[in-house]
């Protein structure tokens, strides 16, 4: 808490000059509960999402190590396993049912809890208001609910580990009939029910969040922040939210029907089943229906995961290459294109499901079309780096890493999306390689990049860059070492979700490679502890952040370092241009960046206050280059009013 105390002191110091009389309001009235637990402040909520997501991420990552140990040394007793997992690893050998449970929950946690809530939740919350110039989300209360639904759903998911039959073990895609028949495997019992409950809560959370993001972006942009000046981050969060709103409800319907099939005896997905000596009465349902519904969410979901990472890295690459993002418009249009097309390609997950081949042809065409905007994005990234002056912060390293992984993983999509090529590859390790690289690793890299880049905005402190560098190189190399070889395992015909490679000739030849992959995975997961250490120690004792540590153009860096309700003292700055005006020739050689909140007038005045490393409001009184001086006591904008409104239970609106 000492760090918090220090921050408080800071607030006093900084506000002393012009807003001294506000000091007796505000943080004194906030209780621990309203500030840290049931906070309605988007910045606090974003930290809550991030930390919950990180904890889930560690759980998911450690699970992957456990099942990787089994794949590398199948059937070999590892005594600590029994210590850790008890009856799920009798004699230190992982139980096959529990192997599947680990894989399932690993996938679910990584896809939904880490890379949907942890990534979108964190950065949409942090950046949308700060980058578009809003005091908070459209509805801070719903925003708070969104986090608490997410938290509850995480708790339910974790609790499912402690039920008698173990957690859900039917794969993260929960295809019925396996998921609909509690008798079919232990992991289809109570654990499955909890999975469904958890996901329902999760979807509620996600919808609340997404609606908030959409409304905020559409309605609460500051003066001058037209859609064509939106940072690519905000475009990405905005479109991601739209995808979520349109696709998650379909998953809800699928899940509700599954719950009915499980407990009310309906037959949406069940027909002609003979399980363990008993013919079930269900007739007329179809598991294929579930696949359609699931992937109608499932495919947009992979873009829900990926697009925020693309937005984040676009911003970071422009900032650190000191160049405008190449082809801003093309970047926006490709995001739009990807968003639209992502709704009509879901069938590429079902090429061999027995779906009508004619339908398959349409999905082949659509899937390969969606590769075009992805290719455009790649080329634009490359063009942005070309002839830049690249400054390697940890965030920049992770962003460049993302581009590399995005290429590697994107190209293998051309195999899986092309129906006939998918026939031998479907449900093999080739798929595991593909989606881990393009969706898992790439998005995680985007998330790390975002954390390193905006950590100063979150905590007012800097992360230790050297630990960041070590974290990046270890993670980058191990990502390739773990996932690249899996392509070859898949091309040799080894299916995924196999507890052991020992039973088939096609798989048993890979035992030595499996050892290599597992060791790389252990190193990779180990490297994340460097990050965790860095994150928490820097949050508490890191170097105090300057106003604009990366010399970035974004509006978020005009807000004071210390966190205040309503984000800015005084009036919200006006925006005069897009956020990517780096290295403008007319400003050469004096400066290589021009924040979007600097007016042309201020620019001409010659006082480049934005280059200073101390909080801008300290230049107030210093004359022309000051941002909130225009209306220092604007009734809307002063912290005083914001706080008072808070106390009355109303939302601080603009």
């Amino acid at each position: 808490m000492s760090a918090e105390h220090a921050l408080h002191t800071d607030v006093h110091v900084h506000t002393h000059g012009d807003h001294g009389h506000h000091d007796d309001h505000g943080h004194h009235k906030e209780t621990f509960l309203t500030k840290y637990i049931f906070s309605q402040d988007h910045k606090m909520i974003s930290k809550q999402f991030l930390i919950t997501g990180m904890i889930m991420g560690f759980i998911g990552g450690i699970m992957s190590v456990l099942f990787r140990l089994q794949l590398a040394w199948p059937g070999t007793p590892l005594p600590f396993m029994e210590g850790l997992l008890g009856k799920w690893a009798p004699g230190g050998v992982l139980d096959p049912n529990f192997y599947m449970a680990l894989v399932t929950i690993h996938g679910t946690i990584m896809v939904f809890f880490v890379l949907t809530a942890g990534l979108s939740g964190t950065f949409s919350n942090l950046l949308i208001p700060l980058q578009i110039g809003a005091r908070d989300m459209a509805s801070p209360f719903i925003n708070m609910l969104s986090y608490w639904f997410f938290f509850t759903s995480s708790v339910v998911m974790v609790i499912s580990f402690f039920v008698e039959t173990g957690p859900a073990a039917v794969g993260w895609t929960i295809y019925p009939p396996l998921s609909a028949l509690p008798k079919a495997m232990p992991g289809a019992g109570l654990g499955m029910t909890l999975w469904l409950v958890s996901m329902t809560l999760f979807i509620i959370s996600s919808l609340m969040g997404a609606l908030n993001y959409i409304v905020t972006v559409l309605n609460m942009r500051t003066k001058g922040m037209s859609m064509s000046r939106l940072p690519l981050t905000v475009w990405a969060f905005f479109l991601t939210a739209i995808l979520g709103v349109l696709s998650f409800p379909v998953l809800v319907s699928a899940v509700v029907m599954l719950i009915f099939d499980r407990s009310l005896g309906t037959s949406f997905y069940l027909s002609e089943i003979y399980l363990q000596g008993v013919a079930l009465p269900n007739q007329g349902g179809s598991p294929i229906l579930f696949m359609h519904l699931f992937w109608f969410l499932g495919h947009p979901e992979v873009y829900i995961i990926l697009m925020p990472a693309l937005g984040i890295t676009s911003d970071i690459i422009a900032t650190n290459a000191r160049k405008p993002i190449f082809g801003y418009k093309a970047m926006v249009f490709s995001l739009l294109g990807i968003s639209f097309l992502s709704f009509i390609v879901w069938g590429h997950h079902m090429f061999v499901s027995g779906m009508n081949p004619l339908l398959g042809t349409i999905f082949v065409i659509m899937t390969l079309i969606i590769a075009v905007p992805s290719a455009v994005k790649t080329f634009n990234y490359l063009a942005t780096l070309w002839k830049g002056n690249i400054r390697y912060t940890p965030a920049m390293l992770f962003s460049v890493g993302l581009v590399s992984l995005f290429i590697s993983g994107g190209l293998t999509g051309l195999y899986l999306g092309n129906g006939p090529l998918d026939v031998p590859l479907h449900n093999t390790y080739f798929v595991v390689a593909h989606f881990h690289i393009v969706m898992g690793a790439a998005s995680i890299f985007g998330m790390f990049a975002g954390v390193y880049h905006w950590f100063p905005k979150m905590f007012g402190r800097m992360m230790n860059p050297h630990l960041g560098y070590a974290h990046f190189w270890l993670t980058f190399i191990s990502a390739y070492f773990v996932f690249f070889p899996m392509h070859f395992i898949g091309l040799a015909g080894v299916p995924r979700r196999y507890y052991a490679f020992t039973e088939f000739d096609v798989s048993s030849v890979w035992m030595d490679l499996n050892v290599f992959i597992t060791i790389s995975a252990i190193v990779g997961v180990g490297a994340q502890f460097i990050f965790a250490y860095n994150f928490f120690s820097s949050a508490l004792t890191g170097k105090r952040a300057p106003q604009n540590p990366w010399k970035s153009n974004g509006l978020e860096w005009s807000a004071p370092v210390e966190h205040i309700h309503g984000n800015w003292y005084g009036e919200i700055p006006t925006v005069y241009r897009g956020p990517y005006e780096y290295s403008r020739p007319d400003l050469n050689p004096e400066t290589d960046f021009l924040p979007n909140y600097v007016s042309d007038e201020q620019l001409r005045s010659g006082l480049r206050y934005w280059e200073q490393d101390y909080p801008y409001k300290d230049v107030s009184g210093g004359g022309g280059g000051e941002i909130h001086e225009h209306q220092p006591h604007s009734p809307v904008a002063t912290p005083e009013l914001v706080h008072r409104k808070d106390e009355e239970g109303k939302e601080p609106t603009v």
Partner: protein
Amino acid sequence: MKIVQKGWGWGLAAALLALSFAPALGQLGEEARKRAAEIAAEPTSSAITAEAVKDLESWVITLAGIVLILVLIAINRVASLVEFAPISQQKTSNIHGWTFLGVGLILAAFIGYEFMYHTKYHIWADSVHGQKIDSLFTVTFVITMFVFVATQAALFTFAFLYRERPGRKALYYPDNHTLEYVWTGIPAVTLLILVGGGLLVWEEVHNPDLGGQKPQEIELVGEQFQWRIRYPGMDGKLGKHGFKLLTATNPHGVDSSDVNAKDDVIASAKEIHIVKNKPVLFKVRAKDVLHGVYAPHFHVNIYAVPGMPTQFNFTPTKSTAEARKERENEKFNYELLCSQLCGSSHFNMRAVIIVHENEKELNDWMSKQATFIKNEPASTEPESKATAQL
């Protein structure tokens, strides 16, 4: 210099500390060995040699030790650097620009190694449609490899070349419409080619030209956790079936009142017998949950769906004997796997596909098999029982 010494001093201390964990790890290993011995003593357990355990143990200990030491050294070194020797951002950028070059080369070497040694198990199909898939695969591979090398090389080169250096200025270059059109157009055209090829082959996969031959029908039924295999017998027609006829003794649910069912052959071993150059039609069903019929050597992959029959048509181009000779492996077998998660033993649903040289060989084998009616003399009884149950 001092800093470095200090860093290494800490590193050494950390290493010593790590070494002091070694006995603890050894203890773990001891336990593992004991446990292994216990398990080996139990008659039901799978045989685990003490050798393997020892092997693993030394692996784990060495590894854990190395990782621990490295991590501790790294943390201490960089932590000390931060405190005592702040380096300028520019120097840092320079270091990481070079590192990109180095790591780029390491990754290139690694990927090269993978292609040299791990493509040896790549499956080139021994089936007619599979070979068409493979041609498309080759085209796709050439295109994607070209793009992969070009873009990754550009990325790593740019990352190296344009690293921050004193006096450098970035080029202000926000847009170029011609370029945008070019790199929208070229991928679009390339993908059009791939789509075209894809659709043609897709058609081949689903409506293969059988040259007027009637395919050999084989029924495959997936259940937890095995494949049930039924041949139509001499008449070439599979008898009717119904899921309500399923019993422990009638695992295919065959309707014995159907004349076509009488000579059906239900395989006793998990073997699928087919003939080289003769089309095969897998008629696929599932009893309980989804399964996937997956024969990687023929590029055959189709779900087995409860309540919805599916099928897959293919023609093998090599006999098992030929395949063995070609691979110089007397034990080689074409395998049938399950590709869709179906429960705890999903990883263990093996069947073998035996491709005979000619029809005569197949018939010889077939004639030695018991027909359905012999297997199932009282097959009408379970039928009434099954109906009664409902």
